[in-house]
């Protein structure tokens, strides 16, 4: 009697919108999630990702749009009728109940037999590796343990879909890395679909099968972590995926490539989407802009931080623009450095408003 997600094929979200008064927090989100998939909703705060999650859970009603679980419309159901597991940002453990009663709460609401509940709860405890903590109150547990209880409570009802709202944001850095691995392991173990809200791109890249990047209540791009990392579809997505150098500039066509004016020099870049010259935005990750004696760009180092393997630096080019780059050799403030970037790693976007 292992804990396994309730069977379903696909969750379909169609034009899901939600407004608060005159503010449109969510503008027509469309998304399909298959069983077993781990999807991260990624975006800056206020982008509507938490609103989207609450709409899926049923805690907020939709202004328009629909949600389907296979062939059943569920957008009019109350949260208690949907049967999705949800992990809250502050865990929301019931402070007056023992760990076991917290985890068993969902099962007892289903009216299961006592022995059945006990068995499932013990199994959930062992899945989240909290076997001997069952009798404690949540207040007696550490943050990481509370997190595990919250996950156990959400998965023990064997939900088709597990919703997680920035579950790691209250933990310290080391525990965050540890729980990241745990969350993915538990997801794979029970085989549910997981929708995971985060503002941390690293978390989304390492956990998810698919990332949904949101901004201002709109889905900007959906793709695998590799796709998003290597080829963001828009300049704002690129910014969010760690392309720290976003340079407004002019470009001219040169074969399949574009010549972009960056920091007073001509740099070859790859056009993305409809970019064909004229006003453009060039996006380069700092780790793709390397110190290189033969490089076309010349900058004066303004600051340099040692990040273990590399120096993470900020330099100022001849035309006054700031450029972030990486150097394997020690550089110091005031040094003159030449930089180069591979043309496939300089992405050129048309200057469109998001």
């Amino acid at each position: 009697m292992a804990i396994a997600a309730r069977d379903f094929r696909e969750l379909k979200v169609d034009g899901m919108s939600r407004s608060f008064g005159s503010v449109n927090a969510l503008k027509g989100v469309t998304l399909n999630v298959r069983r077993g998939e781990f999807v991260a909703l990624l975006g800056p705060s206020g982008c509507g990702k938490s609103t989207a999650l609450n709409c899926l859970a049923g805690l907020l009603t939709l202004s328009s749009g629909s949600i389907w679980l296979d062939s059943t419309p569920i957008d009019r159901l109350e949260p208690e009728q949907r049967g999705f597991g949800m992990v809250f940002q502050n865990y929301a453990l019931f402070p007056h109940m023992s760990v076991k009663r917290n985890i068993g709460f969902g099962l007892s609401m289903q009216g299961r037999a006592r022995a059945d509940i006990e068995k499932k709860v013990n199994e959930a405890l062992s899945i989240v590796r909290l076997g001997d903590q069952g009798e404690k109150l949540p207040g007696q547990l550490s943050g990481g343990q509370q997190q595990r209880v919250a996950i156990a409570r959400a998965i023990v009802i064997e939900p088709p879909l597990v919703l997680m709202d920035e579950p790691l944001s209250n933990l310290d850095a080391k525990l965050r890395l540890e729980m990241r691995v745990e969350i993915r392991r538990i997801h794979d173990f029970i085989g549910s679909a997981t929708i995971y809200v985060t503002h941390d791109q690293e978390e989304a890249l390492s956990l998810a099968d698919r990332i949904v990047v949101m901004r201002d209540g709109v889905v900007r791009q959906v793709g695998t972590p590799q796709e998003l990392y290597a080829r963001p579809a828009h300049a704002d997505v690129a910014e969010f995926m760690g392309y720290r150098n976003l340079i407004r500039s002019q470009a001219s066509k040169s074969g399949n490539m574009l010549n972009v004016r960056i920091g007073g020099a001509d740099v070859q870049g790859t056009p993305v989407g409809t970019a064909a010259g004229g006003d453009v935005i060039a996006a380069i990750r700092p780790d793709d802009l390397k110190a290189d004696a033969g490089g076309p760009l010349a900058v004066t180092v303004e600051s340099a931080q040692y990040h273990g393997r590399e120096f993470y630096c900020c330099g100022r080019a001849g035309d006054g623009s700031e450029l972030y780059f990486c150097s394997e050799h020690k550089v110091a403030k005031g040094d003159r450095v030449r930089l180069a970037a591979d043309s496939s790693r300089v992405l050129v976007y048309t200057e469109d408003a998001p």
Partner: protein
Amino acid sequence: MTPDSGRLARSCFAPRKGGRDARGPEGREETRPPLRVRLALRDLDAVTLLALPAILFVAALFVYPFLYGFVLSFTPKAGDWLANYRKFFSDPFLYDTIGATLWLAVPATLINVLISIPVAMRVRRVQRRRILTAILVVPITLGTVLIAEGLLNYLGPQGWFNRSLALLGLGPVRLVHNYTGVMLSLIMSGFPFTFLLTLSYITGIDPSLEQAASTLGAKARARFWHIILPLLAQGLAINLCLSFVQTFSVFPSAVLLGSPAGATRVISIVAYQAAYEQYDYSMASAVAMIMGFVQLAVVTLILAARGLVYRGAVGGGKG
């Protein structure tokens, strides 16, 4: 109004030293820190003196009068030291007032506290909570006498209520100068207090707990019984105590709206009559002591029952 206010003032003003952890190495005798430091580690320093006015105030206005009355009650006009108490408990006209007062105070307290729960549950979701709260709180500002006058006029034999009933062909109902009148007045003047307290306790419960319960399949009724009520129990106990003490000492409405010689002859009327009609302060003090003892007994009972329920934080996480 307890000697606790001294401790409160101190912990507010003294710099926090982090309790147990800050206490020095107690086992080692050779590095014993100076007295001033040791006192400071127990949160006692010059700032503690700021609590002195409060302590004096409590002693002068609460502790001294209480002890004075206590001693006075054992020095009767005639007879031995227990004569007042013997007199009270041998005359049904006197000791029956305990029952009469409880018969008013207990139902009024229960009604006020129980009604305040659904009202507060609803009001916490209202957008313009302030306006609604202000309206509900108006009776506090009116005072019992004004409420009593209003009820006398409105519910009396010639009042609007009975005249309207007469128009419908229904006989007059007697709602004042009896038990009902006092009860209505106690509810009107007591409810705002219980409501405000309950509202603040309910809004203190983390809303994500209810959301979590609903994603786990709990319907509104189950959420109330399993989540809200257990977390509210502490607050309700305090609310019951305060409300009971307030209603048990009912005096103006029992006289104005009740029948002070009959069903609503409450214990405070006995104390009043002893003090200002018979000029027997010793007897009056004895009645006041008995009154205080009954209140203490009920409050102790409620607080003891509190041990059966959860007492702790009502937040959902590390906060």
